[in-house]
């Protein structure tokens, strides 16, 4: 292997890891704040992909500036998925406030399937190709040509994580989220509107999922109505690996899954063995530390 290939693979790892990290992060938000395992989240990601596809196809025919289009379609996708996430919260979760946890899981799986089949009915089963949301210039890194979009995927993902961290550590809403995450009842006694904070976590999840979808579409372009299924699956594994509900854990888990997905196919004879490796890592981590790498015993999750 020469240095050129190694650099390419490191960039591929950072790209895939960043996307998994964002996906896991978007999935873990709701759990961290509200202790809800939101399996409908994959469908939110799927909706994002379709909104990004249709909106960008429409706008690229009319607007010349690609970055402008990217920002606009990202905002549109974020708004649409936030509204769906809020709808989901009030239709699939709020009515089950006092129901057993398993009912909520079943409800979220069902809601996710309903959204996925709605996508299938509206947009068809044909695979689509996402327009190039991020302009693809080639730049040279130490003499090695690197497609700019890969770097931008990594940069945008990391920027999103940094912004999220600033919001959670430094803003009033972030403080409220941490309080609700640690003790919802006590947060109410402090005057925090806990219902609104939980809703906010659904919106955060949807917006981060939209950013992740825009990066996924940029990196891998081809997708179909069931794109969310694989994503939610790997997000869940990454989040559990890092410690479900923990933001830093989701990021770590995302990059570990990304690393396995890149390294395993190089070392193993069959590329799909990477899934087995990922599961093996997950099982070993959970055996050694049942709360996941960064998870604590049901306290501070975000």
């Amino acid at each position, binding site marked *: 292997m020469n240095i050129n290939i190694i650099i390419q693979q490191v960039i591929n790892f950072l790209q895939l890891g960043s996307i998994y990290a964002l996906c896991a992060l978007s999935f873990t938000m709701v759990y961290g704040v509200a202790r809800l395992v939101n399996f409908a989240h994959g469908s939110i990601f799927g909706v994002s992909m379709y909104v990004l596809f249709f909106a960008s196809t429409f706008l690229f025919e009319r607007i010349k500036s690609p970055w402008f289009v990217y920002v606009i379609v990202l905002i549109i996708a974020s708004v649409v998925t936030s509204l769906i996430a809020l709808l989901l919260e009030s239709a699939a979760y709020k009515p089950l406030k006092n129901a057993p946890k398993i009912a909520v899981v079943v409800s979220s799986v069902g809601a996710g399937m309903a959204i996925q089949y709605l996508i299938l009915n509206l947009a068809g089963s044909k695979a689509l190709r996402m327009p190039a949301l991020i302009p693809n210039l080639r730049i040279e890194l130490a003499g090695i040509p690197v497609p700019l979009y890969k770097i931008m995927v990594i940069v945008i993902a990391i920027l999103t994580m940094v912004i999220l961290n600033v919001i959670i550590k430094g803003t*009033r809403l972030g*403080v*409220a989220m*941490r*309080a609700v995450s*640690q*003790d919802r*009842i*006590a*947060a*109410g*006694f*402090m*005057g*925090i*509107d*806990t*219902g609104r904070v939980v809703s906010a976590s659904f919106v955060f999840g949807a917006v981060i999922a939209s950013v992740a979808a825009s990066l996924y579409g940029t990196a891998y372009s081809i997708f179909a109505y069931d794109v969310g299924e694989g994503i939610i699956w790997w997000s869940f594994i990454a989040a559990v690996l890092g410690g479900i509900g923990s933001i830093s854990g989701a990021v770590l888990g995302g990059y570990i899954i990304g690393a396995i997905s890149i390294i395993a196919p190089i070392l193993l004879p069959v590329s799909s063995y990477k899934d087995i490796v990922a599961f093996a890592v997950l099982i070993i981590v959970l055996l050694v530390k049942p709360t996941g790498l960064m998870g*604590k015993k049901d*306290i*501070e999750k975000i």
Partner: protein
Amino acid sequence: MNNSKRSGEPILKVDNLQVSYGKIAAVRGISFEVYRGEIVALLGANGAGKTTTLNALTGVIPIKDGTITFNGKRIRNLATNKITEMGMVHVPEGRHIFPDLTVGENLRIAAYLYEGKDRNLFLERRESVFALFPTLKERINQQGGTLSGGEQQMLAIGRALITGCEMLLLDEPSMGLAPMLVKEILSTVEKIAKNGQTILLVEQNAMMAMDIATYSYVLETGKIVYEGTSDSIKSQDKIVKVYLG
């Protein structure tokens, strides 16, 4: 101790409060009043319905029937945060401090409703909390979860005071504490009342609670079976023996 304050408009008036868990009636139509500046004790054995009553007052659990009037306003089934905003704050059984936040952060969250507008008010209130509980100042950078039981109780009370409430609901502040510490906490509660807070104090530790409360209600299986000034209750051996032993 006298009961001269028990007249006029009560700050809290509870009328025929009923709360059920499914089919089980935990609070079965109780009525009581708390007047401004008083310490009122709600006494009773384990399972009598004391915690349920406080949870119903602050919207933690839904109410089946009855009216609750705080400061002249009906608050039945308002959300917990709204009740805090109105000035009645619950210090729950088991303290419920934020375990992974430091003492300082726990106190700061209590200023959630106003800190953005008036940071000095927060600092002022925090100083008065430190005056009551100097230990909290020493431990300001320590994580809440690492405090001892007594310190956690101080933090929980201090946090409630920083919200700027008019009335505190204290659920078994003495639970799990050594007798010396119980005395200390209860005498601080008395001090807090002298500073102008109104206090509804829930205790199993009846004799100690009546030492600081002016008026007491005795709860048994969801009903008020006796009420009176603490002195009058203490003088009745039968009540003390049957309900408060």
